[in-house]
């Protein structure tokens, strides 16, 4: 997500909100945001309710066998329609901000 923070101005310029979701509680998210200089929100889903709703749960993959989210990225438009999904097959390989920006540029005609 560091790479998204670096490109945040390009997301802002297009009117795209970047937001992270994990099972971490708000105090950890606050500490991490401060430490890493994140200016986009990190949402806390400790019971993995939203994570389950999006079917991106990774059961038992967290510390002490806790359920956590698997890496996954969604681009949702203003009508709440999913316009792009990235479900990696390798935990180490994540979506890059350039991918999301390029998808947005393609689905949004210029000048709108």
């Amino acid at each position: 997500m560091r790479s998204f923070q670096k490109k945040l101005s390009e997301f802002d310029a297009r009117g795209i909100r970047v937001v992270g979701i994990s099972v971490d509680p708000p105090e950890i998210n606050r500490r991490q945001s401060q430490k890493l200089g994140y200016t986009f929100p990190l949402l806390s889903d400790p019971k993995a309710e939203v994570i389950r709703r999006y079917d991106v749960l990774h059961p038992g993959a967290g510390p002490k066998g806790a359920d956590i989210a698997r890496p996954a990225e969604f681009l949702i438009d203003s009508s709440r329609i999913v316009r792009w999904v990235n479900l990696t097959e390798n935990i180490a390989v994540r979506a890059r901000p350039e991918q999301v920006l390029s998808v947005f540029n393609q689905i949004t005609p210029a000048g709108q």
Partner: protein
Amino acid sequence: MKRKWNWAIWVGFGGVVGGLFSYGFFAEYPITRDFPWANLSLFAIGGALLIFGVFRAFGRPQLYRGKIFGLILTAIALLLIAFFSYEIFYVLRQVPLSTHAPRIGERAPDLMLLDQNEQPVGLGDLLSGSRAVALIFYRGFW
């Protein structure tokens, strides 16, 4: 005659150990994280030096040391490379299929969660005044 220090064995072993422990560093950069080129290169260089060192220890034992510790370090290096390969090429790929994740064209499930300042945030809040939301699910910092 005192036999020579077989540097290739030690440097090679150091290369393999470095290849393993530098993963945290190289994982910071997408180009060396998506595929562990840097770590595999260190393994290759370290492995080649180890083999070179062991061969000359056996080929010219009167000149070079390292017949025994060369083999021991080579065995340890192989175990380290095997461990790395297992973690990177098997464990990291054990990701759930997420077959019921919302697809392109489907309506995104609603959400209402606390942000880092303990303020509730919904999908509607994120979309108000913006044209899209990039939702990034991540494993967490714990």
